């Protein structure tokens, strides 16, 4: 059984200027098994971030369903979906988005703020994760006292501290130079090797090298998948549109 199952998901937005419906995703079907490292690639505006927010239980699809670990995510109430995000998902954002007024340790502890754990347990858990990402010696530093790569690692630690079964990453190396980007990707590789399911949105081909599968999206439609060593050639738009959707099951 798939750990994540995206079933016939479509998403349309209402254009704020003329009120017309803008179709962002069309009949998306994806299945991801536990422990997989899956990358979603596509050009800007192709809908990949929308897919990520839908999988992240933050963006209700216009139609279709999302199941994670057998849970019909969008059948949950808004507050229960917040609980779901806390328990199931670790987010890594492109800009890292650490709280500038909290130090690295406090940023990592942030998802535990509402957990019923003692202060000591929260701190121990956050320190362990910081140690895993190699930053235990910089726990007291504020984000602006850390390098870009270190900030990325703190963001990953924050995503891991709740021990979620799924990591969602949105262009995690987008703002990093090649060397620090590689450091962050190496961290993802190690995590995946330990059994962590990772779903990453990227437009960087190099990042896909570590993935088990790479999904390609264009104009809101999945246009194919390839293993990381079989990069798909971009398809002409008209061909992509006429091609039957590939169901990953």
């Amino acid at each position, binding site marked *: 059984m798939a750990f994540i199952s995206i079933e016939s998901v479509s998403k349309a937005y209402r254009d704020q200027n003329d009120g017309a419906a803008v179709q962002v995703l069309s009949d998306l079907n994806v299945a991801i098994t536990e422990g997989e490292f899956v990358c979603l690639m596509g050009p800007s505006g192709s809908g990949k971030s929308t897919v990520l*927010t839908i999988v992240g239980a933050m963006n209700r699809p216009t139609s279709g369903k999302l199941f994670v670990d057998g849970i019909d995510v969008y059948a949950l109430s808004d507050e229960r979906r917040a609980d779901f995000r806390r328990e199931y*998902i670790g987010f890594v954002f492109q800009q890292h988005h650490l709280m500038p007024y909290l130090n690295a340790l406090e940023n990592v502890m942030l998802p535990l703020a509402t957990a019923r754990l003692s202060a000591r347990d929260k701190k121990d858990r956050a320190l362990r994760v910081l140690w895993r990402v190699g930053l235990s010696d910089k726990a007291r530093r504020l984000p602006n006292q850390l390098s870009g790569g270190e900030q990325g690692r703190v963001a990953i630690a924050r995503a891991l501290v709740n021990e979620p079964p799924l990591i969602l990453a949105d262009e995690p190396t987008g703002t990093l130079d090649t060397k620090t980007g590689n450091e962050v990707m190496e961290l993802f590789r190690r995590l995946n090797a330990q059994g962590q399911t990772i779903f990453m949105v990227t437009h960087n081909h190099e990042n896909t090298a570590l993935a088990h599968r790479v999904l390609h999206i264009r104009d809101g439609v999945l246009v194919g998948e390839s293993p990381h060593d079989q990069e798909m050639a971009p398809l002409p738009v008209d061909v992509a549109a006429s091609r039957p959707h590939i169901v990953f099951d």
Partner: protein
Amino acid sequence: MRISTIALANLKRRKGKALFLSLGIAIGIGTVVALLSLGTSIQEEVGAQLDRFGANILIVPQSNSLALDYGGVSVPGVAFDVHQLKNEDIQRIREIPYHDRLAIIAPKVLSAADVDGQQALLAGVDFKQELKLRRWWRIIGQQPEQEEDVLVGYEAARVLSIIKDPRTTAPAPPSQHGAHQGRPDVQFTLARNQLRINGREHHVAGVIGPTGGPEDRMVFGSLTHVQQLVGKPGQLNVIEVSALCKGCPVEDIVAQISGKLPHAKVSAVQQAVKARAEMVDRLTRFSAVVGVVVLVIGALMIFTTMMASVVERTKEIGVLRAIGFRRTHIINGLLLEVAIVSLIGGALGWAAGLGASWLALPYFSETGLRPELHPALLLFAVSAAMLLGMLSSIYPALRASKLDPSEAVRYI
């Protein structure tokens, strides 16, 4: 790490805004505290004056005929009264439910009398009660002790040549009594101490200094003695009652006495102090209106600041929602920040308000009154500030909690 940690860290980061918000709340609450403190202090002063100065309830026989005048209030004619007040009525008054509020009960019998060949108004009084009631009387000589001792009003004493060498001196300094405050003081000595009233010799114990009131023209003797002297044993013309009415409606006491004395006319006396109390009431109402306006302005300021803060923190709130914060967690966090700021603002406002009233009170008080440090006022200031902060922040907090995390994350 708890939600409170985030709230405190946020306040530390935005010290300037937090301080601005606290000061805004402090100004609003401070204004209200100052007005309340002033109002309360002046009311207390007026209340104390009400209790101290004279009667506030007058009891006279039920009659339509008016013959004698006493204390600015008409007393029914003695000769035609159908229902006389009696000595026993004093005991009945003491039996009303509000009896513990009755500070002074001063009965009187009044009659025209022949005093050394001249007609004068003779009053029989219970000196012990009367002197408590007329605290502003300045007696030259001694207080009456014997049955036949009398006190003579200044004008009567002058006409009857009881005093000599009267001379006017500078006004007396303001006193606690305040009754003859600012009035020139008159110094004199007694020329004689014997007086013939209705053919009987009496001893003049003392002369009452000029008051400007009707007592200046009267002679006062002990109640039972005068009742016998004028042939009205056990009869009374008027009973004055001073009730401690700071915390009770005088009308209730009037009603209770009326119930006990159906044959008497009981009325609350409207005195100058009473008029001042009304003025203070108006001042209090005006203060309340000003206070409400200031608080509304304060609430709007908090509202706009919090709305701006929510917009500024859209991204941050989006991240918190994305990592699993519930709506209630977002609301709690924001309201906690406001609560801390309001707490500080309320305490500052309390201190500032008391300071302001401390400075302003001498301009409103006649007795050099100082505001009291009421713990309840501190509690009020802090509670009002918290309530103000919370109410003004509910909408911004709700709006923050309803931010669509995916929309917020689009900024990311």
